[in-house]
């Protein structure tokens, strides 16, 4: 469920970075304030645990594919939302760095989809109120299961929204949604069961570990949510004012009316594009701004594209040649006795 850099525009990736970055800052402050020095090693080791857990595959009955254990909700139940969020975020950073899962720009989106959603949306708004402070066995199990499924569904929805809003991939919103949600429902059902079973297991062996945050006030936990909402709506309105068509296009795309909506605004869009050309980054295009049907500024001109391709390929060859030369030189240097 990792977003990739290649599918994101800087606007979408940057907004998600801002949101996740702000959440990391808020969570860090909260953890520091809590002044429980036991949390430092516990978070570190549990982060490593999530990693270790993800290395074991689970077979999903019926689908034949294998899913992975995401663990956002489990950590929130064991550690409380702030430490859990930081832990998941750190896991995602390491996945981005070591497994190239996602990438640097996509990191913000991934932290949001897999960490923020579970720790700051599902945990405080769904799990906490429904599970109650002294939840009985069955109720807690049911709520945990549903919450785990929901966290994964919302995360998948995030992937779809971010991808379509970026518009690098042409896949229509509804089609992408129709593919992503059921797959993640299947994964979620299994992951939910596992989460329930692990929580039960731990609760039986060491009851003190489960829900230490149960008696915390809910309002502090909602701070990251409020900040995220403000940042996202701020970014949306900023992009909207900077490029009304971009947003309109995105919405049209989301509702599946892209084909109808595009030609109408072609002229308007060309003007916006002209404006864009004069700006600092000439090719900087908002999603869909280059969708115009008519040739002009907005569609890549046939001549420039071909020359661009030829020039680009040549520079690539040149770069490879330079790399080759450097490598040879390096090998010769290191072959000499020092």
């Amino acid at each position, binding site marked *: 469920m990792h977003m990739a850099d290649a599918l994101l525009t800087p606007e979408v990736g940057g907004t998600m970075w801002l949101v996740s970055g702000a959440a990391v800052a808020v969570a860090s402050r909260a953890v520091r304030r809590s002044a429980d020095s036991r949390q430092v090693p516990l978070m570190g*080791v549990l*982060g490593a645990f999530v990693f270790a857990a993800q290395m074991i595959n689970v077979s999903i009955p019926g689908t034949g594919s294998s899913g992975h254990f995401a663990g956002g909700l489990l950590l929130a139940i064991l550690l409380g939302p702030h430490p859990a969020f930081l832990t998941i975020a750190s896991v995602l950073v390491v996945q981005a760095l070591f497994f190239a899962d996602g990438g640097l720009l996509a990191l913000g989106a991934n932290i949001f989809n897999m960490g923020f959603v579970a720790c700051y949306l599902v945990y405080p708004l769904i799990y906490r109120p429904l599970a109650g402070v002294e939840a009985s066995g069955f109720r807690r199990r049911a709520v945990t299961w549903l919450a785990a499924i929901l966290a994964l569904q919302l995360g998948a929805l995030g992937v779809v929204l971010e991808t379509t809003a970026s518009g690098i991939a042409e896949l229509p919103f509804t089609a992408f949604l129709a593919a992503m949600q059921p797959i993640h429902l299947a994964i979620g059902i299994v992951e939910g069961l596992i989460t329930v079973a692990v929580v039960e297991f*731990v609760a039986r062996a060491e009851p003190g570990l489960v829900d230490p945050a149960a008696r915390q006030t809910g309002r502090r936990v909602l701070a990251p949510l409020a900040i995220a909402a403000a940042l996202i709506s701020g970014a949306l309105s900023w992009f909207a004012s900077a490029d009304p068509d971009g947003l309109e296009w995105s919405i049209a795309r989301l509702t599946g009316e892209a084909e109808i909506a595009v030609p109408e605004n072609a002229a308007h869009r060309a003007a916006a594009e002209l404006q864009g050309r004069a700006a600092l980054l000439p090719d900087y295009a908002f999603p869909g701004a280059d969708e115009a049907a008519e040739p002009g500024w907005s569609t890549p001109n046939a001549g420039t594209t071909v020359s661009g391709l030829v020039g680009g390929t040549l520079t690539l060859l040149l770069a490879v040649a330079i790399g080759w030369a450097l490598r040879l030189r390096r090998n010769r240097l290191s072959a000499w006795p020092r």
Partner: protein
Amino acid sequence: MNGGGHSLLDLGTLDRLGQGDSAIHRIDARAKLAVTLAFVLCVVSFDKHAVGDLLPFATFPIVLLAVSGVPVRFVLRRLAIVAPFAVLVGVFNPLLDREVVASVAGIGISGGWLSFVSILVRFALTIGALLILVATTPVPALGRAALRMGAPRVFVTQLLSLYRYLFLLAEESRRTLTAYRLRVPHDRPPSWRAFAAILGQLLLRAVARARRIHEAMLCRGFDGEWRLIATPRMSGRDWLFAVGWLGFFAVLRLVFPAHALGLLLVGG
């Protein structure tokens, strides 16, 4: 998104490569981190049909690969492993956007194909650069760099402790899984029930370890604050690296030398 054993192996390989020594390894982590970030931002900021303008950016990973001695094959293999998601999502572009936008030797190229190739090029560039960053920089140095660049201390602490115990717990989980496999007749992955039991065990062991680590920390005067000795300043060489590459990216981003070169050769 990645299969068990291989990822652990790759983790070890990258970690070992990061501990290596070369002109690139010796550059300050802050400089490398900032340049890589700028690189990724530049690459993704291009128009969705851009291919030609993106290719010159390959200079950066290629030069770094060459100078650092990081095996090319390793980077390519890792790229191939994580490619499926980007490819799967992008592969619909040629089907959905069939408008011909260019023709080479009489064959029309549709916008969809261009944007699909663009996704692949972006993918290879951004992920490649990131892999090279990690293969030439030890993680502790990256953590310090992030700290100096303003990341919250609690978060960096968390990252570095996660990294510290990653290998240990991965090894533990591998052993547990082996023990499980040796006791079941079939060669299937564990059912969710067995999986949950394995996880529960691992989790309790992890918690017990965290407790022992905390005791060891207390014995050495831990008071909740995680202290690190400051890193030395960036040297002239580090600055040269940073400013040089940033300037190079700026030129590629604003002047489009690929276009100019192409125009010279094939004309408008």
